[in-house]
């Protein structure tokens, strides 16, 4: 296969990955790594490098739209970025010391859990009524626009939330994904932050988290221009189209279909990891 054909395939696959990732809220990275490794036989380290780059592009590209809606809480974001950037560096260090088979299996497990998470009913808890003292001291409680007025919300579970964010950062640095699902889990479930605030703040944080390990990956030669170029442009394009469509379509059925695709990819990654083929 000549490079032009490979670049074209990668770009087309990345557009689809970015489109579905934006539409379902699962991000493009989760599909791009199986596509590169399983379908195109590319070494997983190159795949991780290219995916991490595309994660920064989609997170930053969508940030403006999210921020304008007024749901992003930059104090929560910055406080938790202390945890995710620390975790991301640790994850990138770990990636250099474990075998690619182990990375493939861990990737498969993360993929599997985010696929399964899709089937859980979506919900919107009102958020914590009373904030914990730690959250108040950190000035984390905030408000979001609600109709004409604004809705105040409290924050609790600062320590467990922070801890899970270190894990989220670690997975991002180890696997080259945004790990938005884990970030949302930490904010929404543990810190009882309203769902919409959790998802938009998570998106805001993903780019910073990815940038923390991206520099280390560039230094290690994981980021090759030939592969990162079509992936970054494809995922960015796909996600921009996806975020436009998101406003007009009901994506529940699509979410289910995509979740099944992810679960199958996850099983294949795990199998290949154990078989030593990655």
């Amino acid at each position, binding site marked *: 296969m*000549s490079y032009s054909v490979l670049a074209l395939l990668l770009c087309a696959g990345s557009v689809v990955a970015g489109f579905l990732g934006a539409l379902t809220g699962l991000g493009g990275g989760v599909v791009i790594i199986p596509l590169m490794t399983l379908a195109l036989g590319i070494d997983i380290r190159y795949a991780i490098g290219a995916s991490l780059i595309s994660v920064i592009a989609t997170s930053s590209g969508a940030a403006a739209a999210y921020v304008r*809606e007024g749901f992003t809480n930059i104090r929560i974001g*910055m406080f938790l970025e202390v945890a995710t950037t620390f975790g991301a560096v640790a994850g990138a260090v770990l990636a250099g010391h474990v075998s690619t088979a182990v990375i493939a299996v861990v990737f498969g497990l993360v993929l599997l859990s985010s696929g399964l998470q899709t089937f859980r009913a979506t919900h919107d808890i009102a958020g914590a009524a009373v904030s914990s003292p730690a959250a108040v001291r950190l000035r984390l409680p905030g408000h979001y626009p609600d109709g004409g007025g604004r809705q105040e919300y409290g924050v609790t579970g600062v320590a467990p939330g922070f801890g899970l964010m270190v894990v989220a950062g670690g997975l991002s640095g180890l696997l080259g994904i945004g790990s938005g699902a884990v970030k949302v889990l930490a904010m929404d479930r543990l810190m009882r932050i309203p769902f919409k605030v959790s998802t938009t703040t998570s998106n805001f944080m993903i780019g910073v988290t990815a940038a*923390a390990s991206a520099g280390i990956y560039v230094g290690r030669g994981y980021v090759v221009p030939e592969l990162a170029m079509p992936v970054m442009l494809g995922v960015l394009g796909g996600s921009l189209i996806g975020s436009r469509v998101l406003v007009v379509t009901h994506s529940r059925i699509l979410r289910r279909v995509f979740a099944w695709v992810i679960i199958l990819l996850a099983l294949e990654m795990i199998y290949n990891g154990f078989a030593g083929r990655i």
Partner: protein
Amino acid sequence: MTRPPETPPPGSDEALEVLLGRLLQAGVLVAAAVVAIGGIYLLIMRGGGKPAYASFSGAATALRSVGGILAEARALKADGIVQTGLLLLIATPVLRVAFSLFGFARQRDWLYVLLTLFVLTVLTAGLSGWQP
């Protein structure tokens, strides 16, 4: 899409957030344009080649450090131009954090200035070629 009814007052958290969001978007668009230009050049130069990515050898040494990448771009090498675009992309969230630092300092929120400084240090360490 719900929008705040009025433009947020300057100096407030909301105004800062909107500014940061725009900054991120502009950074991504500039980076994507540089990557696309380098990419077209790359396809013209090496489109017919048959590179092997099945086994890992890593990017060329010159493409692994900021200094090396910029030197390659100045020499108008396709690789260097694409990689410069990717560096711009990585720098975008870093710049966002740097701007937040300025915003928090203006609000005299020293706790958040400190937290932001920590994040900024981790980010610049990775980019400056520090390998843990």
